[in-house]
């Protein structure tokens, strides 16, 4: 359903990821693991089209994705970036509305639906997004990505700097989106417990390449592997 084939790219002349191939099947949740600086964020940005591709291919919904990030979003690619990047001088409602409207969905309906999924945002709906706490902004970034009604959702370090109660809520929502609405998920994380609670399968990255592919059970039980790959 979602596929990155032979991705090579980086910033300017610096190549960060080399010949990376991964795939996510319809309705599947997959984790992307690895220590800091192995190229997880670069791979995510490659997938969205925010960094130009040196070579390689991205397929969304079994169709080859055009280079423009906006077109990829409209094909069903949702993206929650590391560091949230909500629109700070827009209200919570507008952050969701603009994403919905840009993809031809009714803004009011989408806001109402997402406030049911994220009751935490309800009292803040008219506040400026820039004034929210880090955890609230993370939830809003997730709601904004869901507002485009994605087929595949990319999440980059969603638990970074977020309080534990909100992490639990986020895990619950993601699990539900995945199982009930069939949204495929690719999640880059350092927090192994969070990943294991959502993903069935994982890719482990090292030095800009995929080092191995593994499943949840093996990751959960193989302490030596955890230690070696993630430093946990």
């Amino acid at each position, binding site marked *: 359903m979602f596929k990155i084939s032979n991705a090579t790219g980086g910033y300017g002349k610096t190549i960060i990821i080399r010949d990376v191939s991964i795939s996510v099947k319809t309705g599947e949740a997959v984790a992307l693991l690895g220590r800091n600086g192995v190229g997880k964020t670069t791979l995510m940005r490659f997938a*969205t*089209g*925010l960094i130009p591709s040196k070579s390689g291919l991205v397929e969304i919904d079994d169709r080859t994705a055009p280079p*423009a*990030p*906006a077109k990829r*979003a*409209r094909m069903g690619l949702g*993206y929650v*970036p590391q560091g949230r*990047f*909500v*629109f*700070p*001088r*827009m*209200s919570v409602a*507008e952050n969701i*509305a*603009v*994403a919905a*409207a*840009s*993809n031809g969905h009714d*803004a009011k309906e989408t806001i109402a639906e997402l406030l049911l999924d994220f009751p935490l945002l309800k009292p803040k709906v008219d506040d*400026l997004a820039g*004034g929210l706490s880090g955890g609230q902004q993370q939830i809003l970034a997730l709601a*904004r*990505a869901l*507002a*485009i009604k994605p087929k595949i959702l990319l999440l980059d370090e969603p638990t970074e700097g977020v309080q534990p109660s909100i992490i639990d809520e986020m895990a619950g929502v993601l699990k539900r989106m995945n199982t009930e609405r069939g949204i495929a998920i690719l999640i880059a994380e350092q927090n192994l417990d969070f990943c294991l609670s959502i993903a069935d399968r994982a890719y482990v990255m090292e030095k800009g390449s995929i080092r191995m592919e593994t499943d949840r059970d093996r990751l959960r039980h193989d302490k030596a592997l955890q230690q070696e790959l993630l430093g946990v």
Partner: protein
Amino acid sequence: MEPDYLATVLLSSLSSASILLIATLGLAVVYGLMGVINLAHGEFLMVGAYSALTATQIGIPYVLAIPVAVMITMLIGGVVEVLVVRRLYGRLFDTMLATWGLGMVFNQGAVLLFGTVSPGIGMPQYSIRIGEFSLAAYPLAMIAVAAGTLAFVYLLLTRTVYGMKARASIQEPEMAQAIGIDSSRINMLTFAIGTGLAGFAGAVLLPIIPATPSMGLFFAVKGFLTVVVAGPVALTGTALTAVGLGGGASVTASFMTSVIGDVFFFLATALLLWLYPLGISSKWRRKL
């Protein structure tokens, strides 16, 4: 002091503040909102004035000449964005040089096409009496025009889907693209709206300020100061600053001389920027 004199001074000062606001709204969009220093802003105002003048000379009624001027300046603004400004986003100094040069080209182009002196168009000869004083109605009507234009721009940017896309594209350009906004098209439109507002100002102020090739300079200087003092909450801040600085300068000028009025304007600007280096609205929790 006579109450009718006082009322006259207040009304005419509000009118000159409104004229400043009309001339500055385009800058509030292009500089205040988009962060693009367009040093050709004054020249866009001049192009708007000449467009309206030329339109009336070929027989188009003045009321229709205004939208003609807006369309021409929006069109030129769109082309300038694609050819020049788009390539220089985030490069402040290069943008300044490029638009400054563009302004000179417009300026000299106007000298070649129209000469340095051009006929004004007659101001509608209505006036109103307050006590023993008489005020021309057209400059007073600019109060309503300023309020109307401000409301239009505000609603356009806060209540429409385009407005949300425009603000999103400016605040987080990458994320705007990543949620499906074609931000380069939206930015072109926003820049064109800014230059169109300058063209509107030139056209609607034509009966008060006749078209000359260098007319833009005066408004560009005061306009930039106003927008810089206003700070990040571009529209509300600019409206308040234009009324405060422009109105204050005009009141001062009525009681003393116009030179002292200008001195007031520049001293107040310096004082405000000393107190609020990031603009008076830097701590406001407002969208626009």
